[in-house]
Structures are given as structure tokens and as C-alpha cells.
């Protein structure tokens, strides 16, 4: 596909379960960002990848959150032992490794923890 693809688009899970969110960036985009957006709020930075490396993990809220990227392409964000406060939309964006390149966003995954 031509755009950033995220799956699933919606996920409902019980408190305490683990979830895995997937992001498939635009081909050739080496930079990949994860953000979290609570209802009606701004974007909270979670983690950045350049290739397979994550030079900035400073936004991950707790050690329950982890992310990886393989082959410089697909990235997965894993949340262990989910809590109700994890409920939000998780957005993934990719870009070229060029300052002028805008971020291209996926449609996000809406996570609801019951």
C-alpha cells in the first residue's frame, strides 16, 4: 500500500492482558514514530526508531511498554498487563530521514481496556 498501515484499527481487551499493535510504514521510510492520543487531547510521544534502532525511548510511560522494529520496516508496540489508563488511540508515523520530510500517519489503533 501507499500509506502507513496500522492494525488492528480497534482493540478491546481486558485489564491485565497483553496487547500488540502493529505499524507498517511507507516503504523506504527509515524514521518511525509512535504517539499516543487520549480522547480529544494532543499527541504524546512514545518512541522513535531510525532503522531498527531506537535512539529515543524516553516517552514510554512505564516498563509495561516496549517496541521493536525489524528489517527497518514493520514495528510492533507491546503493552503488557494493560491498565484502564492505557486506553487511547495509538498513532504510528513514518518519514524519510530528511528534516523537510513530513510525518505520514496511519489511521491509528483505538485501544480500549475494560
Amino acid at each position, binding site marked *: 500500500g501507499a500509506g502507513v498501515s496500522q492494525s488492528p484499527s480497534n482493540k478491546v481487551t481486558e485489564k491485565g492482558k497483553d496487547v500488540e499493535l502493529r505499524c507498517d510504514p511507507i516503504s523506504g521510510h527509515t*524514521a518511525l*514514530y509512535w*504517539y499516543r492520543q487520549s480522547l*480529544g*487531547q*494532543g*499527541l504524546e*510521544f512514545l518512541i*522513535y526508531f*531510525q532503522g531498527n*534502532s531506537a*535512539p*529515543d525511548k524516553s516517552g514510554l510511560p512505564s516498563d509495561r511498554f516496549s517496541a521493536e522494529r525489524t528489517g527497518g520496516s514493520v514495528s510492533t508496540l507491546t503493552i503488557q498487563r494493560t491498565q484502564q489508563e492505557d486506553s487511547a*488511540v495509538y*498513532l504510528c*508515523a513514518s518519514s524519510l*530521514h530528511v*528534516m*523537510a520530510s*513530513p*510525518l505520514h*500517519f496511519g*489511521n*491509528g489503533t483505538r485501544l480500549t481496556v475494560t
Partner: protein
Amino acid sequence: AQTVTQSQPEMSVQEAETVTLSCTYDTSESDYYLFWYKQPPSRQMILVIRQEAYKQQNATENRFSVNFQKAAKSFSLKISDSQLGDAAMYFCAYRSPFEGPGGYQKVTFGTGTKLQVIP
């Protein structure tokens, strides 16, 4: 650390009128990029316009233009001839130059302005 501030949580404009959304930022860098993104209720974030800090000329994209004041660290978005389809959340974003051995480019977003267009 870079910060981006959007001081207007909500704005409204009459259809066909002009509205300006404000954004200020803080940085010690001399070269960087600024962006405005639009997020309609469908949730898809879309690029509206971008501006390089080294360019003095304000960027323009059809009905969208910016007023970039580098010394004041201000980057406002003007929407002319507002249309119903312009109703959305608008986010201002700052992209830093390359940092560190990995060439990290941090992208910082403001908290957004919700724009309502009144028919």
C-alpha cells in the same frame, strides 16, 4: 528541550471567513522545520503546510498560509475562505535538526486547536 505551545484550545469561524491559529515554540537551533497538521474526526492526520526556518518567505498552500516570525518563535496558520471541511483539530509541530550519532530528529507537537466552522 523543545516545546510547542498552542494557546487556543478551540476556535470558531464563519464559513467563507478567515481565521488564524496561533503557535509558538521554543528552541535554541537556527535551522529546523515547522509543520501544521490537520486531524478531522476520521482521525487521519494530514499535512497542511510546512516551513523551513531558513526561508524568510512565508509558505502558502492554496487557502492556507503561515505567518512565520523567527525571532519571536511564532508560527501561525491562516485559513482563508473557510469551508465546512476545514473543521478539525489542528496541530503545530516542530522538527529538530539531526542530533546524535544516529541522526535523531525529534518531532514535537503542540496540544492542538479544535476548529469549528459555522455554516
